[in-house]
């Protein structure tokens, strides 16, 4: 008679060896590794700089079209709020994501000028302020904080 094979006994399950192995520590992958793998599936976070660049291009085109073909085409170019052409970076103002820059109200325009100052872009802020005064000579100028 063939002696019982220890492998057969082991493969039937619940052997002392398996029980001992299951009692051992069971290391899991670190959380950072989990995040890295799951990121492979969900895809990378949106790449903001190219998006900002695309928004800037779109806004510039919209502005040019509005100036050339829009009802305000007779207005002097300096009267348009140039700020939206200056940059579409999120760190300046959320208004820069506006899809219709020529509809900036004086108050919004001043808010953007203040945002430029907060970003340390004083030269651009001064230029915008000059354009603002030319467009709205009677508007009480007090740059909002």
């Amino acid at each position: 008679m063939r002696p019982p094979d220890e492998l057969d006994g082991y493969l039937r399950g619940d052997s002392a060896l398996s029980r001992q192995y299951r009692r051992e520590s069971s290391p899991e992958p670190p959380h950072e590794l989990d995040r890295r793998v799951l990121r492979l599936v969900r895809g990378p976070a949106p790449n903001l700089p190219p998006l900002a660049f695309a928004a800037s291009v779109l806004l510039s085109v919209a502005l040019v079209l509005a100036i050339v073909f829009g009802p305000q085409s007779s207005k002097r170019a300096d009267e348009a709020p140039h700020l939206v052409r200056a940059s579409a970076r999120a760190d300046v103002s959320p208004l820069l994501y506006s899809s219709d820059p020529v509809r900036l109200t004086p108050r919004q325009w001043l808010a953007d000028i203040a945002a430029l100052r907060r970003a340390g872009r004083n030269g651009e802020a001064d230029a915008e302020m000059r354009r603002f005064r030319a467009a709205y000579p009677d508007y009480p100028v007090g740059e909002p904080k």
Partner: protein
Amino acid sequence: MESLDEDARLMLRYRDGDADAFAALYARHKGPLYRYLLRQVRNAGAAADLFQDVWSRLIATRGRYVARAKFATYLFHIAHNCMVDFFRRDLRLHQTARIEDADAPASEPEVPEHQRPDRVAELLEQQSALLAALSRLPQEQREAFLLHEESGLTVEEIARVTQVGLETAKSRLRYAVRKLKQSMLAAEIEDSPPLRARQLKAVN
């Protein structure tokens, strides 16, 4: 479709674009896969790289997935191939280092921290007798044991994953089990002095 295991169904859903199905699959298999790799390469950094490599390959080839067998067989087949590549790279690295060092003046060989003999001995001491014995097994035997314990693969599935014949897989697992049992027995004897004394007495 009825005969498919739940994991294979999840993988099919993921293949068809359901990212949540992947998250479920990942949660089920990350632990067994990580331990399989960690206890094979015995280095956390290398295991982490391999772990990510395995999932990357699974993601990259998901479009070709066909549910022919248990999903674990598919996953660990990828893992086995990644590990074979790893060991080949490691071997080439050591061979290159030996050739480059042939003309250099004799000096202390530079080995990674985790491979230094004193460090290995220290690690073995920190482990249980079983894990220490597991780490001393030949790689093929260790792999067969881990595939069975961590993912519940049968001998046939182990043979398929490791691309060897059924008898070879069976033989590897048999040797692994025998050696591990012996190490457990030895540890028990060490832990119980009266028993050891009785055995020594019996021997004498």
